[in-house]
């Protein structure tokens, strides 16, 4: 059982890292709390389902297409709904909430509330130290690691990445230095939704695809950000793994039903007792 906790904890930690990173990017760069973040995760999962099941596309192209399409959708979303409202963060919040609900209902309309399955890419499993781990789960872990590495390279080495970091630090200064701030926002949005989509794509084969799946990724991402603070990549990764292991420990040792409760407890507990988070800059100023 301990082996199970470690293995599952690691896999979920990787997924939560991706979710949290996507969330912090738009948050840190544009100060937008995107309540439709979970909806992007949902859109990507349904896209994969549709591409694979209704159009017969093989898994890998379907994944790439779904993530790319969702990232584009995210950028469009920004341009059409968020950009006109960006003066008032409250209205941005509401419109993104509205979009999240709307997309959920569209999913119900098209696919009904019944869960859908996404086929696994790598069937089969192997034994690690007495626990059976599916190949799919290992693939998930590998892809997540690669994504985080790519993200880090993007932010550190590319021009767009450097601009993003400048804007995140101080958008006025960045504008004065000639950095096209609006373009950075757009890029951040695309990255953010792309990461949410990637997380959705990775999780879909071993859970189910259903219209309500958008809310827990949103809450988990928020919890990780609250715990870890903004601005530190390693801080976010650490917080993501803390949350994941806490969930697994609660699930295995106390009760699987309390798994979500563990996440909520971390969120509320951090807000009450250590609002500045553990590392980096807290979201409470």
């Amino acid at each position, binding site marked *: 059982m301990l082996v199970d906790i470690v293995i599952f904890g690691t896999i979920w930690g990787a997924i939560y890292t991706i979710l949290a990173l996507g969330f912090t990017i738009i948050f840190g760069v544009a100060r937008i*709390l995107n*309540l439709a973040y979970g909806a992007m995760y949902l859109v990507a999962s349904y896209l994969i389902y549709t591409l694979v099941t209704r159009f017969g596309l093989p898994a890998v192209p379907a994944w790439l297409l779904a993530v790319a399409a969702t990232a584009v959708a995210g950028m469009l979303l920004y341009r059409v709904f968020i950009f006109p409202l960006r003066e008032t963060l409250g209205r941005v919040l*509401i419109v993104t909430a509205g979009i999240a609900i709307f997309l959920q209902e*569209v999913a119900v*309309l098209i696919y009904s509330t019944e869960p859908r399955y996404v086929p696994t890419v790598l069937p089969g499993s192997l034994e690690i130290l007495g626990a059976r781990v599916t190949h799919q789960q290992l693939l998930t872990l590998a892809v997540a690691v690669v994504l985080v590495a790519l993200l880090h390279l993007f932010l550190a080495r590319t021009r767009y990445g450097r601009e993003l970091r400048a804007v995140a630090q101080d958008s006025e200064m960045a504008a004065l230095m000639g950095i096209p701030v609006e373009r950075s926002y757009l890029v951040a949005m695309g990255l953010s939704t792309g990461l949410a989509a990637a997380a959705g794509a990775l999780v879909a084969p071993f859970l189910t695809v259903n219209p309500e799946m958008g809310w827990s990724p949103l809450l988990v991402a928020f919890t990780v950000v609250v715990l870890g603070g903004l601005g530190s990549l390693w801080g976010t990764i650490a917080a993501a793994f803390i949350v994941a292991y806490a969930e697994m420990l609660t699930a295995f040792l106390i009760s699987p039903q309390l798994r979500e409760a563990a996440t909520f407890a971390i969120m509320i507990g951090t*807000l009450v007792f250590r609002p500045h988070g553990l590392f980096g800059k807290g*979201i409470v100023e």
Partner: protein
Amino acid sequence: MTRRLALRYAGAAAALGALALLPVWVSNPYVLSVLTLAALYAIFASSWDILSGYIGQINFGHAVFFGVGAYAAGFLGPHLPALLVFPAGALAAVVFAFLVGLPCLKLRGPYLSLTTLVFPLILERLAFTFRDVTGGEYGIRVVPPLSGTGLYYAALGLLAATLAVLLAVSESRLGRTFRAIGDDDLAAMAAGVNTTRYKLGAFVLGAALAGLGGVLYAYHLRHVGPEVFGLFTSFSIVIMGIVGGMGTVLGPAIGAYFLTLLGESLREIETYRLLVYSGVMILCVLFLPRGLWSLGEVLLRLARRRGRQAAR
């Protein structure tokens, strides 16, 4: 009293009067039932507006307060005389206002909103888990001391009281302070306002009213179950408030009536209820910042312009 305030009082009174007289002409229990539901949602949306419309902190977890009031009616109904159940429901809701408010107080704006989303989910899960106490998903059957027309009038009465509170808040110094905090809470703090106390106050006031409404809701449905804590309920209230017009006293109530009646008449086209609601809300946020209320303003301005042109 300013002319504008008097007109507002008169407008609200006229609308309520019309609704109060309705049972004289309409005796169909179905219609009365739908109107009672609309009145209850108007109470929830209006009480929500106190925090969200004035102080500007969008609360996605308002369902907690009326859900707790409803469960109070379920648990205490058989044990307490009817008149005591109401204050019990309000008290329970106020307790939760503190439980929810305290962690959220250190937060502002969007962070507060996202955190408030969590509480109804927790309560929903608790209601399911402690099945022996809460009846789990079956809920609790409630034997109401009021029903039919009696309940309709009780709901209207509470709605009138809620609107009166909103009017009082809006026109008083309290309201101005709320709005100042809503506009720029850092400036308010710099000016010496204890924003934490005011935010908590808004939570508590909104919760108490919602708790009372929750008791009536339990009486109306004759049942209370975990679905009162569902995301659907929370979001419906937010949407009603926004579509009607936040911070406009009558706006959320109008939004509640409009959307509840719309929802029932959409029954024919099956239920795309939340789809339509959220679509309407997105359009409102983009084009009608103060909801249906501002629609009225826009029309009035057009009418005045038409009038001026005719006068030339």
